[in-house]
């Protein structure tokens, strides 16, 4: 596994190196123009980065409250039998292919968003973020629930012994104790949202310019790669530029996941 992770990194670097050496400057990150076939071609990726950040932020803002409260219900409030049923429903959700979510977003969410907010098109970052928030719920819920369950029983018992109610115990004792694990869950949710490809490719709208608001059509970095790599001539500047974008995506998700992983693995060590 280490080898494959290392190999992926090595190949991404190798394939993007020609571009990094020749074309990457500050403008690569701060500019808005992406003109792969003009002469000379221009590659600037701020728009894609901003799009990814906006959609991920929306997915997290919407998803985390539901995720954490649902995890509290499963871990602390519901009898075991009912929790099991809900848990398997979320397991099934995690298995729904992302292209199916994208299709649903295209057919149901986007038209509804266009109607509700009176927009010319529903294919916007907002629709993508909403669908993503549903997609990251299984990750958020299962890991948060595990964190809550790992809180030692004695903590809750001590709190009850002092006369606290169940809700006070949950909210003042159990949740704060589990916050490391919950934070890891949120981080993995962020990583998942940044890396999600098909949903944003199908419903974020695909406009290249830097979005002014979440209600604009936009193209996150994953969608950029998926939509252009088949048309880019092998070993062309565009090809290497797309690998550079992939390398950035890899590094961003790696950083997010590494922090989450160190929280999780570190916990087990103790």
């Amino acid at each position: 596994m280490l080898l494959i992770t290392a190999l992926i990194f090595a190949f991404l670097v190798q394939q993007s190196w020609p571009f990094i050496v020749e074309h990457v400057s500050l403008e690569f990150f701060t500019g808005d123009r992406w003109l792969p076939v003009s002469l000379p071609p221009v590659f600037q990726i701020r728009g894609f980065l901003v799009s990814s950040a906006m959609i991920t932020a929306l997915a997290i803002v919407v998803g985390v409250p539901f995720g954490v409260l649902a995890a509290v219900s499963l871990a602390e409030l519901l009898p075991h039998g009912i929790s099991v049923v809900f848990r398997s429903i979320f397991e099934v959700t995690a298995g729904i292919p992302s292209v199916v979510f994208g299709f649903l977003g295209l057919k149901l969410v986007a038209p509804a968003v266009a109607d509700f907010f009176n927009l010319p098109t529903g294919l916007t970052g907002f629709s993508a973020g909403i669908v993503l928030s549903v997609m990251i719920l299984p990750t958020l819920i299962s890991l948060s629930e595990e964190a809550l369950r790992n809180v030692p029983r004695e903590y809750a018992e001590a709190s009850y012994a002092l006369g606290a109610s169940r809700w006070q115990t949950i909210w003042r004792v159990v949740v704060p104790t589990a916050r490391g694990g919950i934070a890891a869950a949120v981080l993995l949710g962020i990583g998942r949202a940044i890396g999600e490809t098909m949903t944003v490719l199908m419903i974020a709208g695909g406009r290249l310019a830097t979005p002014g608001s979440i209600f604009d059509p936009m193209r996150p970095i994953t969608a950029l790669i998926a939509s252009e790599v088949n048309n880019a001539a092998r070993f062309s500047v565009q090809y290497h530029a797309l690998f550079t974008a992939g390398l950035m995506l890899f590094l961003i998700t790696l950083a997010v996941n590494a922090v989450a992983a160190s929280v999780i693995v570190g916990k087990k060590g103790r």
Partner: protein
Amino acid sequence: MRTKYSLKELACLLALGIAVLPPLSAVLYIFIMALPALSLEFVTAMPVRRGIEGGILPAIVGTVWLMFGTSLAVLPIGVGAGIYLAEFAPSNRLTRILEMALINLAGVPSVVFGLFGYAVFVIMLGFGPSILSASLTLAALTLPLVVTATRQALYGVPTSFREASLSLGANRWQTVSTIVLPCARTGIVTGTLLAMARAAGETAPILITGAAFALPGLPSSFMSRFMALPYHLYISATQIPAMPPERMWATAAVLLFLVLTMQVGATIWREQERRNKSW
């Protein structure tokens, strides 16, 4: 557990209820919308006029090829790594790094796996856009799943089994291969089923490594290009305006049915087995 709830606790339960609603209703809705187009012909006939008429047989066959190709590639490596981590890995720094790599690999975006597969399998190794390239790419993507499932299954085998075997004079490898692995068989198989379900549903990696929307025949070997259900759905929905909507819903339903039966089946099987065990 007390089942009388305060107001705030009820709010919590409400959040759970809302969270569970979209996926449940989505699955139901897809199957209802698919009904008008679903027929025996739809799943057994070749497409006509770029899939606007006829069936989706080649996409189903392509997805089945992918599932088998992926499991063939991922099983030996994934199970091997799982066995190592559970049975032989010393509890040291390297093992912790390996575990971190496992979590990180699971978090690498699927489109990045696609780029990796494209650069390595399609171009460098010269497999071209083919079932082989796509299967190997999907194998890398599903590796963490198989490793984790294997490891979990091995952890589930009681230590006393190993001790009994060792005390009878078996060495560590004999113990693992004749005692521990057979006990963990179901866990490993169900883990592989889950990986196959995942491979069947992925779109971004195969989009880059060889999926096609319309091909004249069924794939003949691992070197063929292929159609696949998720890719078929993606192109139908975004690039074929003439595609009748009920056919897209039906494609989504077939994909969902395939993925969910494997997944639910694997989960139920694993739980059943767990319950049947006396240890």
